[in-house]
């Protein structure tokens, strides 16, 4: 809707009243009917009274070509005219009397018109027809300006989206390349750490079995003791046994209680005092392995985010993919109660690894949230079902729904939109699947199946529901 200053609007209303109300010059155009065709001779200037019109323009080069595509026959949409807009202004006032557009009614419409024979009304008061129609021309100019502005911003938006898509494509290629190179490097680090550990272990076994044991204890150390407890114990050993700070710390790692210390005896303590470095050596190699695992975990996550190779086949069992995910996470969920309720679900067209990836990321995320909030009696429940969405034409008719809920802390309202974005994380960087990529991978994968994710979060329960269509949507 074009709005103009009052001193234009008043004469404009007069023009509409005195020129465009004559019943002899009012036409009804049925929906789909032509008002004028492109290049047709037309001596009229129209005012739309009712209904909307659309103007198409066909590129001249397609004229006469054989079997043109549908858009070429009809042409490209140029603008729309709503009630109170004028049509054929330029051809009328330029006296070219040729329409540049094909104008079609979108619904049953009505227009009023004047033609080149219409005389000026009250010229002695309002001047010539051209003079009287200046407000119409101003209105047309404003309308065209508005149209151009809209077109330009739409075009800019389109270019921006295109650039983003290109960037994503480049990034995906780049990430595949980087992933390959990094995996090679990380592979070398990890394998060589293994070799060094094996050889050292063998060598020590032959030369000094006690040191071999210290080395092994360091290499296999997986004690999970709070730093403060460890420090307190080390201090005690330092004072009681006159050990160095470093040796006392190693002893605190190796010996977990008074009983164990008594069992090991003073000679062991003295041995550690002198040879603690063998434990450290083992521990160093262990850290190398852990760091390599972290690195390859991150590489895997980045590769998935970039959209790696996916091989989808028919007949994939969703329930099985959930079971696979749970068995992969056995270690992670051992302190939680897990409830599952598998419904009858049809096999779908999918990549099993991708499905497993979706569930593991959601479940891991739930575990992290509950651990971080120290949720008492943490629970995870998973249900699967087959849903027929009758009547909802916009969605695929059938899909498999998987709901993963937990009784952890609610997801704050203000971050619900953000949790699926890459690099949004409330967690510490780096470990396991780090980088805040987990849920963004879920989103990307689910999108690629044409599925949807629903998130519900309250004080007592937070649930993610993933709906996957049972049939692939094409186009």
């Amino acid at each position: 809707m074009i709005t103009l200053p009052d001193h234009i609007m008043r004469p404009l209303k007069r023009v509409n009243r005195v020129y465009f109300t004559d019943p002899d010059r009012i036409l009804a155009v049925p929906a789909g009917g032509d008002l004028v065709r492109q290049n047709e001779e037309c001596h009229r200037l129209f005012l739309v009274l009712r209904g909307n019109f659309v103007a198409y323009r066909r590129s001249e080069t397609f004229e006469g070509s054989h079997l043109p595509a549908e858009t070429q026959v009809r042409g490209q949409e140029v603008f729309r005219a709503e009630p109170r807009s004028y049509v054929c202004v330029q051809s009328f006032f330029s006296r070219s009397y040729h329409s540049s557009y094909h104008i079609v009614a979108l619904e049953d419409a009505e227009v009023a018109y004047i033609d080149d024979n219409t005389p000026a009304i009250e010229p002695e008061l309002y001047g010539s027809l051209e003079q009287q129609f200046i407000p119409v021309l101003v209105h047309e100019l404003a309308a065209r300006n508005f149209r151009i502005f809209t077109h330009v911003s739409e075009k800019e938006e389109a270019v921006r989206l295109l650039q983003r898509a290109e960037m994503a494509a480049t990034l995906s290629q780049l990430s595949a390349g980087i992933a390959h190179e990094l995996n090679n490097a990380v592979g070398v680090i990890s394998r060589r750490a293994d070799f060094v550990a094996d050889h050292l272990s063998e060598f020590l076994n032959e030369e000094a079995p006690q040191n071999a044991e210290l080395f092994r204890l360091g290499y296999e150390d997986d004690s999970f003791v709070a730093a403060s407890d460890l420090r307190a114990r080390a201090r005690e050993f330092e004072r009681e046994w006159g050990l160095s700070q470093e040796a006392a710390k190693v002893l605190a790692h190796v010996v977990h209680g008074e009983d164990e210390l008594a069992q090991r005896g003073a000679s062991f303590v003295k041995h550690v005092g002198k040879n603690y470095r063998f434990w450290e050596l083992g521990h160093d190699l262990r850290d190398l392995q852990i760091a390599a695992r972290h690195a390859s975990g991150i590489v895997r996550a980045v590769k998935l985010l970039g959209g790696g190779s996916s091989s989808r086949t028919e007949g994939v069992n969703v329930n099985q993919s959930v079971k696979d995910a749970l068995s992969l996470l056995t270690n992670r969920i051992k302190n939680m109660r897990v409830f599952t309720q598998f419904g009858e679900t049809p096999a779908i067209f999918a990549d099993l690894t991708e499905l497993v990836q979706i569930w593991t990321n959601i479940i891991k995320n739930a575990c992290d949230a509950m651990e971080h909030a120290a949720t008492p009696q943490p629970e995870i429940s998973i249900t699967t079902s087959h849903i027929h969405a009758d009547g909802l034409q916009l969605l695929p008719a059938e899909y498999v729904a998987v709901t993963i809920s937990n009784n952890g802390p609610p997801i704050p309202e203000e971050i619900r939109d953000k949790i699926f974005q890459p690099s949004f994380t409330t967690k510490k960087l780096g470990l396991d699947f780090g980088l805040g990529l987990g849920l963004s991978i879920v989103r990307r994968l689910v999108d690629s199946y044409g599925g949807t994710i629903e998130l519900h979060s309250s004080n007592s329960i937070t649930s993610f529901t993933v709906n996957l269509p049972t049939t692939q949507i094409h186009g």
Partner: protein
Amino acid sequence: MDKIHIICVDDQPEVLDSVMRDLRPLSEYVRLEDASGTTDCLRLMDQVDAEGGHIAVVISDQVMPGETGTDLLGKVAKDRRFRHTRKVLLTGQATHADTINAINEGQVDNYVEKPWEPEKLLSAVKRLLTLYLLDAGIDYKPYMSIIDTPTLFSKLH
């Protein structure tokens, strides 16, 4: 226990161990302690202070669950007991805003990027240790072999 302490803070034990190992050349003269996070570090500092120990330098990771390194160093800066304590932020990922925050709120004396070069970390810590000894009025002579002499001379003259 009239002993000089240096405390390293990181929530990833593997990284923490690496920092500790790189600072080991100092261990003959000062006590190296590690803490797994902000709370653990503050508890440790209370304990050391209560036992009459001195805390010369705190080296903290930035990104940790709960409070950040900047938060921790800011608290240390505000504590009268630790007014001479020097602060180092060790980080692999710092935005411009983080950096500004670290200087204004955390009042850090040094900023070390991950992955760090052991020699650079060590020399930075030696320099800060020297400054601490002078500020706190502790006799630096017993520490001559780990002191940063240019810093010492510039302060003495």
